[in-house]
């Protein structure tokens, strides 16, 4: 129970197409995170799943049943709004009890369920207060409480933590992950925050302008982005892109010339790419000072010393976005002094002129979190 499928889902507002054909299967108990730039249609997609927004085209199927025309309750879905949407005139107890009151549940059942929810969310001592007296994190927990009393099979969250400060967000993130384990329900979660996406998701759905750019486990998106968009979107600071020319194809991979140096990249070759102009991607955190199979000399204009990391930004001739490198620890690097950025061919990503990635030959089992003991 709690299995969701989107089949070529489309949403248009008037003439304006916002969601342009989304296909997605979400398994029971899965935690799926939608990410994407602002305005790409995440909230719209979520609201269609919730039943708040009419679906212009395609089917939304929950547990094998087409639910396009059912109201939210009949879909077995609960949603937590970004803005909490608490009933300000009711106490926390009544807020959490609201869905049960609507159902007409007996008072005994209501107080049991509300107390159970309050216990999970550590709100026991707040039950008689009004939302106006609570902190942001507590309000968010009340909103979650209102969602869990109905015991829905699918939870929808629209940027639930974006109004909270960084510390509280980290706490709530952990609590939500715990909650997911405890309830075992399917959760679909929209966020802007990369850390939330990477840490909480079983799978991440990257949306771009109404399309799904890629679906995959967090580390899969990080190590094997299928296109330039995902490569640039996942990872912070974002991946560096350098222009490259294909000079040849071998069994070992694709040979390219980048900034006057030759590299043999271990990626799946495609026929007929000799001489094509490609894009090479290298993540800032894969750059080491001075050494490497390729070395690019850059002059950082800004260097940030974070203690844990040293981050530099440099202009690259002929490219608008700056070249960024992240070095572990505190390094003696000064701005406006030349820096030799070295990197290994194995860490590089390669994209064709359409922005599609050449599949990297990396062993995902060595790159993902080890399973079992």
């Amino acid at each position: 129970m709690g299995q969701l499928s989107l089949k070529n889902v489309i949403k248009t507002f008037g003439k304006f197409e916002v969601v342009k054909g989304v296909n997605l299967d979400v398994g029971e108990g899965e935690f799926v995170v939608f990410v994407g730039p602002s305005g790409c249609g995440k909230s719209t997609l979520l609201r269609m799943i919730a039943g708040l927004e009419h679906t212009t085209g395609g089917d939304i199927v929950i547990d094998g049943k087409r639910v396009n025309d059912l109201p939210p309750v009949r879909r077995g879905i609960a949603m937590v709004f970004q803005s909490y949407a608490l009933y300000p005139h009711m106490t926390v107890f009544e807020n959490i009890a609201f869905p049960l009151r609507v159902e007409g549940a007996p008072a005994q059942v209501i107080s049991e369920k509300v107390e159970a929810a309050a216990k999970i969310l550590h709100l026991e001592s707040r039950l008689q207060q009004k939302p106006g007296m609570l902190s942001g994190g507590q309000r968010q927990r009340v909103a979650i409480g209102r969602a869990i009393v109905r015991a829905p099979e699918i939870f929808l969250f629209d940027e639930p933590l974006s109004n909270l400060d960084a510390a509280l967000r980290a706490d709530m993130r952990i609590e939500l992950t715990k909650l997911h384990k405890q309830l075992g329900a399917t959760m679909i979660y929209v966020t802007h925050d990369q850390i939330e996406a990477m840490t909480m998701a079983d799978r991440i759905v990257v949306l771009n302008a109404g399309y799904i750019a890629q679906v995959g486990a967090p580390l899969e998106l990080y190590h094997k982005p299928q296109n330039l968009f995902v490569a640039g979107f996942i990872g912070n600071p974002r991946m560096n892109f350098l222009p490259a020319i294909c000079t040849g194809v071998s069994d070992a991979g694709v040979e390219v010339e980048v900034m006057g140096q030759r590299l043999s990249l271990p990626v799946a070759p495609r026929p007929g790419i000799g001489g094509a102009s490609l894009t090479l991607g290298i993540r800032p955190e894969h750059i080491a000072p001075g050494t490497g199979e390729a070395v690019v000399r850059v002059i950082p204009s800004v260097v940030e010393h974070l203690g844990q990391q040293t981050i530099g930004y440099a202009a690259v001739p002929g490219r608008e976005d700056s070249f960024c490198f992240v070095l572990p620890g505190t390094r003696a690097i000064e701005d406006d002094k030349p820096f030799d950025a070295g990197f290994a061919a194995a860490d590089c990503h390669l994209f064709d002129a359409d922005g599609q990635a050449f599949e990297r030959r990396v062993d995902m089992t060595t790159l993902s979190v080890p399973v079992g003991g």
Partner: protein
Amino acid sequence: MALFRDENTPMIDRYRWWEVAGIYAGIFAFLFFLLAPFLEGFLVSLRPLSQLFTSPYRFIPENGSFEAYSGVFERLPNFWRFVFNSFLISTAVTVAVLLLVVPAAYAFARFSFRGMAPVLGAFLAVSMFSGAVLLIPLFRLMRTLGLLNTYWAMIIPGVAFLIPSAIWLLRTYMMRIPVELNEAAYMDGASQFYTFRRVILPIASPGIVVVAIMTFIGAYSQQFVFALTFNSKTEYMPLPIGLFAFFGKQEVVWNQLMAAAFMGIAPAVIIIFFLQRYLVGGLTAGAVK
């Protein structure tokens, strides 16, 4: 704005002594201008009739008394009846307006439907006509419906003329209630009506109280025109018409007139003070953000 400062007064609320003096002088001048007629009316009610036309005119009455107040009841044995009528009419108007306007304002605030803008515009246009302009058509309407010389003749036009401004006022208030609350209630399975009753109405209650006060005052002051034209029965007369009894053929009994006016207004003022306690702000605190 805090004029009296203690050590906790924020900087933005601190004034120099001459600023404070200026502010008080301004408040005093304004209030005096506003309240002087009432003050004089009250002083008039305190003095004997013979003293009213002495010259030079004296503001402060000599040997003032409350005699005129008891005199009201001699000249006007029906006085309380008139007050009751005034109240009955205004209360009925207020109740009717609220019953009609609260759902209507909600609909105008939350739903968008074809013809909404013209209807709202028409409401504004209607309220630009004063009742007096429409007296003749209204009279014919009342006569056709057989409502002349009943309470209805004073209640129905009152309701009609007070609805537009009430709708505009309450609609604005309701539009400020976040839509997410409706959506959340919908997600929780509540019907439109349930949401309206359990979520929107309680949050809108300060707005509803404001509309109730405005409507009550409006009905109180507006009933004169309708009562004068549509009713000739003494037992249905509201207070403003009843006060005509003090206008004699030769002279006007000013002191009793004023006394009656003050006694007539007093209950309304008391009710409004009572309603004001429900005008609490910040009811949406904690709803969103």
